[in-house]
């Protein structure tokens, strides 16, 4: 653990965010304090921390803001904290992805969000054990997918990536599958019923 204090007072936007990014990247684990002198910078640095799955606390002193975040332990605590006791001891984290965009509403925004989600997933520890794609979600695992790099990176780190075979057939893209394996409904049902599953 090492403590880092970065003084961003007097910096113009987006200076404080860039300095925060650098500090987070350079810190394995430890406390990072960012000092800024205006509200816009305070909100931006807080947003940046949240986007990187780091909680932050803000203290205000004489019109200056001291934003503190802890890298390392914070992520582990939040992941463990959400685990439910009703699953078997060897239960793993499963993501079931049911469409090629994230959330309901604007498809354009949904496409942006799924990419942001997958990119963020790369930073989350522990990583999920299994990512399963059904319906239009399978389009994320084929050639030309906007998140192919992210999924390939996750697969390279040992994450099991599975795509529904029926769905690949329906969208006529089975030959385009570029990451992971084809799976069937039996495996999907068994996997989601025995593990902690997040459905998107």
């Amino acid at each position, binding site marked *: 653990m090492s403590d880092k204090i970065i003084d961003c007072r007097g910096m113009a*936007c987006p200076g404080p965010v860039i300095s925060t990014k650098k500090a987070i990247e350079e810190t394995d684990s430890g406390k990072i304090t960012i000092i800024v002198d205006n509200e816009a910078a305070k909100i931006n640095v807080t947003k940046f921390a949240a986007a990187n799955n780091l909680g932050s606390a803000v203290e205000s002193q004489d019109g200056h803001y001291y934003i503190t975040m802890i890298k390392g332990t914070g992520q582990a605590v939040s992941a463990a904290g959400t685990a439910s006791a009703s699953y078997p001891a060897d239960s793993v984290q499963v993501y079931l992805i049911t469409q090629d965009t994230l959330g309901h509403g604007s498809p354009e925004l949904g496409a942006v969000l799924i990419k942001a989600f997958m990119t963020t997933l790369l930073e989350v520890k522990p990583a999920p054990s299994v990512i399963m794609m059904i319906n239009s979600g399978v389009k994320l695992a084929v050639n030309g997918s906007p998140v192919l790099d992210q999924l390939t990176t996750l697969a390279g780190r040992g994450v099991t990536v599975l795509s529904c075979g029926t769905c690949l057939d329906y969208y006529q893209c089975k030959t385009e599958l570029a990451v992971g394996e084809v799976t069937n409904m039996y495996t999907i049902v068994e996997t989601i019923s025995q593990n902690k599953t997040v459905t998107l």
Partner: protein
Amino acid sequence: MQHSNVLVGITTSDDAGVYKLNETTALVQTVDFFTPIVDDPYLFGQIAAANSLSDIYAMGATPLTALNLVAFPNGKLPQEVLLAILRGGQDKVAEAGAVIIGGHTIDDNEPKYGLAVTGTVHPDRVWTNAGAQPGDVLVLTKALGTGILASAARAGLFPRGVEAAVAGMAALNAVAARVATDFTVHACTDITGFGLSGHVYEMAAGSKVSIIIDSTALPLLPEAAEAAAMGLVPGGAYANRKYLESVTFADTVPEPIRDISFDPQTSGGLLFAVPEGEAGELIKALQAAGVAMASKIGCVTSEGSGKIYVR
């Protein structure tokens, strides 16, 4: 006291001043200049010119002449930089069919560039921001997020979004304005420093109506929402947000979209208020003419005092 020939003056926060010369011609005048928003001087010149010309288009007018306004740190930056800025402006003004007939340069620490532009319009065909009517639909012609992506550019992040933002900022609003002349335009403005919310507010307040914006229908530049979520939001967006108390959001509107709605735009799109029956055809015609991002983003609900609701 307002002169009787002044058709649009400084009281309605409109895009340009309009002065009636005779029964068939009114003069439209505007000026805008700013510090570099991109590193490439030629692109900066193009963007500054497209931005200055935009106010003429937003009034339904045709640009005729322009004057350069230049601040440049003589001796500290190479002369080629200045020449590239002016060339960018020159090319964009020529593309608009107008001509630069003069200008003025001063020595200053930081470069600044823009133009004073003069155009003409028939006095009965002026588009103001004050004519929106209940039942109108709002059509926006460019994607949002240029301020956020300019921040991203300074941070060296989101290159794909930055590239799209630069292309959007350098594009003239000429085509959109020309297409819209075949439709019933009740009100028009261009989206610039006060952000979408700010300029919609000016339209709503000027027209004495209330407006609903559909946040899921807003055309967004690629990666703008991601950049906003990362905190690459310019200070101006927070200032707009603080100032615009008459804008309220549904709980479901995500934070990055709220940021984008307040994001100061450079050389943003035109915002038209047209009768509901014509909106579909207008969007079709705009897209057919190459204004690909043209979108229906909201509607005028009732007479009111400038309340904006984003759902």
